[in-house]
Structure formats: C-alpha cells, structure tokens
C-alpha cells in the first residue's frame, strides 16, 4: 500500500516487500537513519559483519546458496570502498546483490566532506548498475528496480547510494508491482529455429560433449533438473567449469569431472577432441580454454547464454542461443522427445570407449603418505565423512580451492560457493557465514588455505555472535600454495615472499574468538579429528597441517592446449624440468 514515510523507512519497507529476511551490514554516520528504522522492527534480521568486504561476500554466499538476492547495507566513504572487492567478485561470477550505501547529504556532495567518496563513480565499473538517489520521490522505484536488475537477465550486483538528507526526507512509498524496469527486459525464451537446429546438430554428433557453467546454477534448480534429463536422454558426456559444479551430479554416470587448467585428463581431452561442444551458461574463460588457437579445433560449437556479449567473445561459435538456460534446456528436452531423436549410437559408444581410456589415466591420483597428510587426502576424507550430511562448501582461493573442486563432489546445485572469476582470497569465511544463515541447520564448511583465511579472519566474530557453526578446514602448508607452485614451475623455485611467515596458532586463534580449535598432522588421526569437528556445535577452525610441497595437478600450463596437460606422475620424475614445458609466451599469461 502506498503511504507517506521517510526515505529510511522506505528502504526497510522495500526490503520487507522484496522478501529480504537477512541483511548484512555495518553502521556508520551516513546510514544512521536506516539503522534507526531497523531498530524498530524484527522482520529483517541484520547481521553485523566485522568488515564491509565480509558483508559483500556473506551476501554472495547467501545469494549463491539460496538463489535469492543478497543484500548489504554500509555507510559512505570507507564503508562503500570496502565493498568494492565483493562487488567486483559478484560481477565476475554473476551473483545478484543489492548494496545500499549511505552518502553525505546532497548539499555536501562534491565538497570533499567527511567520509565522502564518489560511490557511483567508483562502483560504476564493478556493478551491473548503480544509482545515486537525489530525490526521495525516486527512492521506492529505484529500490524495487534494483532488485529486478540484480536478479534478472545475467545477475549481478547493484548499488543504491542514498544521501543522508534523502533518508530523512518524507515521500510516498509505493510497493513493487509489474514490470520493474521501463526498458531493461532481457529475453528468456529461445527462438524455435535455433532449438531445432541445435537438436539436429546433437543427433548428428559423433563425439559430443556438454560443457556447462555457473549460468546453469543461476538459472535456478529447474535448469539443473532439465540438464540431467537432457544428458540422460542423449547419453552425452558432460563436464563443467568451477562455477558450474553440482548442476550435474558429481556421482553421475556421464560426469567427466571439472575441466580447465586443473581439470581432469578425460574432461580436457574430450573437449579437445570432440566434434560437437554444447556450452550451457559458460563463458569460455581463459582458465577453461587454455591456448585459444588450439582450443577444440575440430568441433562445432553451440553456445547457450543469456548474455549476448559472451557469444564470440573468446571463441567463435557455430550456433548461438541467447536466452535463459532453463528455458533453452526445457525446449531442447521437449524437442528431442517430440521429434523422437536419438544419438548416433555407434560413434557415441566409440567415443565413450575413448573417454574410458582417458579416465584410466586416473589424472587426480596422487601419491599418498602414511606419515604426512596429503591435502588431496584431507579433502577426500572430509568428503567421505560428510556424505550423509546436508553439506555446503565454500572455499578461499588457491591450491586448496582446486583440490576441493577435484576431490569434493557435489550432487546438487547451490552447494558449492567459490570465487571463480575474480579469484578473491578471503571469500570463503564470510561466504560460509552467508550460506549458514540461508541454511541454518546445514553443515557449512569453508575449505581454506592458511594464507587466504587470514584475509577475512575477523568474520570469526560474526560467526560467534550469531552462533553460526561454520567449520573452517584449513589445508595448512605454510605457503601461499598456488603462488609457490607457479614460482616452482616458472621462476626457478625462487619462493619470493610466498612463505606464510609468522602464522598465528590457529587453535588458540579459534579459542580467542570463542570458537573451537583442532589441529591434526597425522593421517592416522585425521578421521577422528574431522569427526570431532563435525560433532562440535559451533564454529571450528581446523588446522590441518599438510604436505608443504604438494603441487596441484593435473595442470594445463599457461599458453598450452587442452591436450598438453601435466600430470602428477610426470612431475615426480626426477630430472623433468616443468619450467621448460612452458614457453616464454606462456610465462606472460597469468
């Protein structure tokens, strides 16, 4: 119902009308009117973070694990600038966020006032859209529009910058209704001609592969269901990007494992040798393609993406379908059925036989040890001991993230929260907090590295304050592991500043925050220690001391093609100089 109220009241009213139950934030001078309104209500639960970056990542974890829009509220100046990394992360990974920032009163804008910054100017490049509200009459529309823009089309973060005088000003609040933006209306349905063309190409394929990404997860649970149906209808193999894990079950029959720089031998070889690639909600990122001019040279490519600019950006495709994944998958399943299509059986059997040969290389194998904990083994045990639980996993960024992606398997979408595009160290703990709030009774584990976790360790306080029993499982090798690995492979083993010097005692650190600390360095005691962590009803920091020099394999060296992978057994051969495998051009790549 329309009624008169202050701008600050409109903000909270709009949050309620948009179904927001959790708000991450940190108060400050320029948002005090909104905090005052929050004080008088209980519908929107405010979660006080310890740093605004934490609020952004927590909102991302909440959004990614629930499919809803994540919301945060911060003050002007440093409050706003501290969210930049989180906003950029959400932009890269297409996570719907609404970030409300306070701003100095309109008459002070441009005067270099205390805690003033050009928030819309600074966030223009790291948001899908942003607003500076100069008139309270515009506020209700902008608030509702922000939720619409954040969650429709290719999702992304939206900033609403509200000067303090606008928060105090009175105006008429109107609830959300109907279409939410006058011109921005992304198309969801595909045209049937291209669907029929795609089905024809699929039926004719001899060596097909599905390559799926985060877009399938963003499209909602029905997209994953339809994807599974299409895979089982066609019998095609399927691989996924880091962001797409869980859309197709990790235990599924046709699953080849993750592809890309640290993907499996079978997934990357199948991508290289296929004759038809069906990309669904994936964007041919450089971590996926490796060397572009040698990327899947013999294949026709179908690209399904809601963002037109993803088409032909990195890789030229033969058939582009610009629409929502779930809509397209539904149409593909329906058309495949209606026209009684079937895959070309004999070549497909042959293709699977080839894939089985690649699988037999067991590219994720590692040499286990009876005396030190191998990081891969730690992840495997964590996975095995949590199989009967309702588990959500977040990660930080680095080797541990890749080992988690390789050895922890997901049978459902929205279970895996990781910073893929931006690669943000410090993402995992706040994201775990957001995930736990979206799923209060679930088991939420942040698989972390000892370097990454220190980037947002202050959020332990948040976990304690709200009794969020997140489990932080640190694979502690005392190195920024991925940096160390690249230095070993590319820079002659000169470990420049990648040793985690002067680490805290993580057990005592956990206790200092009011949580539980567990340390384990013996593989024989690992299972019992993990059980102890799982049995504890509260936040735990698990300091898992692992093999320090372990490298993450398989690996496609920079500038190399999919069939140019390094495997663990190669690296163990004495005398093989991996650095020599990567040419000068490759060294320049990141």
């Amino acid at each position, binding site marked *: 119902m329309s009624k008169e109220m202050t701008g600050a009241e409109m903000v909270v009213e709009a949050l309620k009308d948009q179904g927001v139950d959790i708000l991450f934030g940190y108060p400050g001078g320029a948002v005090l009117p909104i905090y005052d309104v929050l004080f008088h209500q209980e519908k929107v639960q405010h979660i006080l973070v310890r740093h605004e970056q934490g609020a952004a990542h927590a909102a991302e974890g909440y959004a990614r694990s629930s499919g809803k829009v994540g919301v945060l509220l911060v003050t002007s100046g440093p409050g706003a600038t501290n969210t930049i990394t989180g906003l950029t992360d959400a932009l890269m990974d297409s996570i719907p966020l609404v970030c409300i920032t306070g701003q100095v009163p309109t008459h002070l804008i441009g005067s270099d006032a205390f805690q003033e910054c050009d928030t*819309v*100017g600074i966030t*223009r*490049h790291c948001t*899908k*859209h*942003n607003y*500076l509200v100069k008139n309270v009459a515009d506020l209700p529309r902008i608030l509702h529009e922000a939720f619409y*823009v954040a969650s429709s089309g*290719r999702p992304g973060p939206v900033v609403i910058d509200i000067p303090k005088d606008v928060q105090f000003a009175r105006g008429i609040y109107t609830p959300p209704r109907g279409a939410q*933006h*006058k*011109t*921005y209306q992304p198309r969801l349905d595909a045209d049937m001609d291209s669907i029929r063309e795609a089905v024809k190409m699929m039926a004719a394929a001899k060596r097909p592969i599905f390559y799926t990404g985060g877009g399938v997860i963003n499209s909602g649970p029905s997209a994953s269901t339809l994807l599974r149906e299409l895979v089982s209808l066609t019998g095609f193999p399927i691989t996924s990007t880091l962001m797409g894990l869980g859309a197709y079950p990790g235990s599924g029959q046709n699953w080849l494992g993750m592809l890309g720089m640290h993907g499996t031998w079978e997934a990357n070889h199948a991508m290289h040798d296929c004759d038809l690639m069906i990309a669904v909600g994936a964007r041919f990122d450089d971590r996926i393609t490796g060397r*572009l*001019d040698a990327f899947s040279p013999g294949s026709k490519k179908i690209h399904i993406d809601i*963002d*037109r*600019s993803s*088409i*032909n*950006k990195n890789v*030229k495709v033969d058939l582009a379908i610009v629409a929502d994944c779930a809509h397209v998958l539904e149409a593909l399943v329906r058309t495949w059925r209606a026209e009684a299509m079937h895959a070309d059986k004999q070549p497909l059997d042959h293709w699977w036989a080839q894939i089985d040969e690649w699988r037999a290389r067991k590219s994720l194998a590692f040499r286990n040890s009876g005396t030190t904990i191998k990081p891969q083994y730690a992840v495997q045990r964590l996975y095995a001991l949590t199989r009967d639980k309702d588990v959500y996993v977040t990660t930080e960024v680095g080797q541990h993230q890749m080992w988690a992606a390789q050895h922890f398997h997901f049978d459902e979408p929205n279970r895996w929260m990781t910073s893929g595009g931006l690669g943000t160290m410090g993402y995992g703990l706040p994201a775990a907090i957001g995930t736990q709030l979206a799923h209060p009774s679930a088991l939420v584990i942040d698989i972390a590295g000892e370097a990454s976790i220190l980037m947002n360790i202050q959020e332990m306080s948040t976990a304690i304050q709200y009794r969020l029993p997140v489990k932080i499982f640190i694979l502690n090798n005392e190195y920024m592991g991925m940096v160390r690995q690249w230095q070993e492979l590319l820079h002659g083993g000169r470990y420049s500043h990648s040793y985690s010097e002067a680490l805290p005692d993580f057990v005592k650190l956990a206790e200092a925050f009011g949580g539980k600390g567990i340390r384990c360095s013996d593989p024989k005691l690992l299972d019992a220690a993990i059980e102890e962590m799982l049995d504890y009803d509260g936040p735990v920091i698990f300091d898992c001391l692992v093999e320090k020099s372990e490298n993450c394999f398989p690996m496609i060296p920079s*500038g190399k093609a999919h069939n140019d992978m390094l495997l663990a057994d190669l690296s163990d051969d004495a005398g093989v100089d991996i650095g020599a495998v990567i040419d*000068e*051009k*490759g060294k*320049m*790549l990141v």
Partner: protein
Amino acid sequence: MNAPASPPSPYSAATPNSKIESHTLSVLVDNEPGVLARVVGLFSGRGYNIESLTVAEVAHAEHRSRITIVTSGAPETIEQIHHQLERIVPVRQVTDLTLTRRSLERELAMVKVRGRGDNRNDALQLAEAFRARVVDATTESFIFELTGKPEKIDEFVDLMRPIGLVEVSRTGVAAISRGPDPI
C-alpha cells in the same frame, strides 16, 4: 640506449591479421545522470578506441538521448563493443550504422583562419567551393562554418593550413539512417 623490444601480447596473438575497420555506432540511451560515463567507461575499461563521440538529447519527453560513436577495431572487436554496449542497463538500442550501409554522417566544424591580401581571397574562394559559411570576420581573419563528412572537413582544414589556419573546433560525427523508417 635502445629499449628492449616489448614482446607482442600473448592475448592479441590469438587474433592476428584482423583488418582494422572504422564503424559508426548509434546508441539510444535513457537520458539519466552518468549514462555517458557508463558508455565512455566501457570503452576505456575494455581498451576499445573512440575516434569521435557526440551526445545530445533527442526526445525530451521520453528522456532519450542519442550517442553517436565512431570506433575502430577488428570486426570481432566491433561486434563485442556492440554487445557490451547493449549490456548497459540504460542503453535501449545499439545500431551499427556502418553495417546497415544506409546512413548519413555529418560533422560540423568551425575553422579560424588568419591572413591578409591574396591569402584572404584564396580562403574565401575555397570556402565557397566547400560551401563553408563565414560566421565571423575581422580585417585579418575569418571563421568558417562547414558541415559535411569528416573527410571533407579534413580536406578543408588541410587547404587552410598554408593560408593561415589558427584553430579548429569540430562536433564529431552525428549520424542517422536513410529512408522513412527509424533505425
């Protein structure tokens, strides 16, 4: 001392020998604060070129502005620019006028020339040939106003140089599609 030759970018190496083309994009936008910054920021952020850019409101009641951008790049880059522009929320429509091959492009220039005697007469005669109008005159100078395709203006400016060119102000290209229909 010679600086070491910088190695070619491994990224650009993926698209060798693509011909660089110049394209005129017509971008209809909601006329709201910051929309020009969004468009310009896209070009700088993604490393695209701007050869010229003009912007003005074209439908006041509907708060609509038209931005005309002349950009250059390989055909696949131009295609990217087109679709990246479409991602901007207040962008309503993007048309590559160069691809439609049915567009008019005009630019306005004001050219200040200083000189006496024969130079003065030469300037006036050339101006007449180019259909440039005199919009300001003193005993030792003229300001010509000239409308046309950018190449025509380039040509006129080049001719004025030996006569006594002082300075030039140009609007950049405005463009529209031919025929009865809108873009």
